[in-house]
């Protein structure tokens, strides 16, 4: 479904990713691990075409993502749900509106929004914070809101960049369970983390990055960072 072909990404003189070739099939649950600065976030940015690769290409199904017109890129992004490491919520919108915006953006009608948003709010336990603005939420709440926004549109892929970074162990287990449940329903999940407990819980494919290179790709994952 997603295929990295010899991708290199450099920021000025800094090499973030070097010669990466990975393929991820539909329905897979992939964890990408590595120290901070290993290139995990860059990898997710390349899938979203937020950044362009310096060399090589990234394919979604058989389409080169970085050759799409802005219009087609918008359509592609509607198939991807993203949980950003720094949440990237819309500061001028309430919890409810942040989730609703993702649905509005892909053109869902009002009825669907009124039906689905409360349901997802309940799922991430934010019903009581529906009319709060992001700056009024705690780190964990923002994280859950970001997850809610990513899953509300029922995307083909969910990319979760450190989705448990701000959560306590109990919430972490819940979030990972949620992602697994979504994966069981057929959604491809790409998760980056440096949390050993998360990997132990997932027990799926693990790709290990070190200094921008893939050093390990295990079918059923263990945490192997030194």
């Amino acid at each position, binding site marked *: 479904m997603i295929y990295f072909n010899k991708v290199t990404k450099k920021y000025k003189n800094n090499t973030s990713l070097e010669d990466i070739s990975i393929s991820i099939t539909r329905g897979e649950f992939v964890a990408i691990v590595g120290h901070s600065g290993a290139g995990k976030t860059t990898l997710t940015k390349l899938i*979203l075409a937020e950044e362009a690769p310096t060399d090589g290409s990234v394919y979604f199904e058989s389409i080169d993502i970085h050759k799409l017109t802005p219009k087609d890129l*918008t359509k592609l*992004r509607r198939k991807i749900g*993203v949980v950003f490491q720094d949440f990237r919520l*819309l*500061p001028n919108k309430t919890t409810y*509106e942040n989730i609703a915006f993702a649905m*509005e953006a892909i053109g869902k009608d*009002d009825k669907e929004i009124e039906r689905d948003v409360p349901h997802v709010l309940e799922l991430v336990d934010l019903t009581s914070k529906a009319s709060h603005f992001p700056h009024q939420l705690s780190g964990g709440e923002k994280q859950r809101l970001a997850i809610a926004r990513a899953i509300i549109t029922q995307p083909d892929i969910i990319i979760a960049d450190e989705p448990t970074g701000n959560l306590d162990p109990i919430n972490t287990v819940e979030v990972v369970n949620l992602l697994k449940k979504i994966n069981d329903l057929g959604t491809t999940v790409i998760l980056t983390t440096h949390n050993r407990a998360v990997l132990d819980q997932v027990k799926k494919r693990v790709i290990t990055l070190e200094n921008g290179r893939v050093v390990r790709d295990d079918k059923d994952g263990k945490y192997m960072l030194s």
Partner: protein
Amino acid sequence: MFLTKLKRVVVSGYRNFTRSGFTSVASILIMTITLFVITSLIFIQAGLNSSLNNIKDKVDVTVYFLPDADEASIDSVKEALEKLPEVKEVSYTSQEEALVEFKEKHSNDYLTLQALDELDENPLGASLNIKAKDPSQYESISKYFESDSSLSRGALTVIDKIDYHQNKIVIDRLTSIIKGAQRLGFVVSLILILISLLITFNTIRLIIYMSREEINVMKLVGAGGRYIRGPFVVSGVLVGIVASVLTTIIFIPVSIWLGNQMTDFIGINLYTYYKANFFQLFIIMLGSGVAIGAISSVFAIHRYLRK
């Protein structure tokens, strides 16, 4: 679907506007200043035009007739003048009126009055006072007397003198001052409007620059360009509407004050002028405000939607 989208864009734009607090206030203030400048310039133009018209009104040319000129030939000159396209108005002063005016003018001068009484006849001639539509046309009117053939020989012989040549220097100078003032007013207006437009545009650009991360997130969530742009344009339009209402209100006390202070100087009461043209002025302010707000937003957001 289109209506749903429109509704969403408007609601979202309205929320952005009300929730942005300080930024909205700042852009309203800047926009108000711009509209204030534009409206002031309209006022200044109105004032300038009216004071120029006052000056123009004071310029005229008088044709003096010989005391023994008969009324028929004076009438024929008057009729001929009134047919000229440059002439706005011709007023006739008879011999008797000229005498009354002369006596009034010299009512403190006994010697002159006595000398006048010594004469049996009225020594003053009748005269025609000519006002042109434009001060620059006096020259051609006076030439008309010198060369034109449509006046009969008889009419020409009854004319004593035309005071154009005495007034020529004054008329020429006034004409050039009027033209210069109009040209200068136009250029200054243009520059001021341009400057305030640039300031408003930059303010809106800064506000959108502050939202660039938000725009980026919207893109990543899969929102289309038009759907992202819409709310910003709506906010810009709202800024324009609020600023134009504000400017309209501000101009009420301003025009009252100017009306009290400046009416004698410029010749019209600006408060009366404001009341008389209130609706048009409000539409101009509203239109410029909305247009500036919307167009600035579209241009400012363009670069963030491009990539």
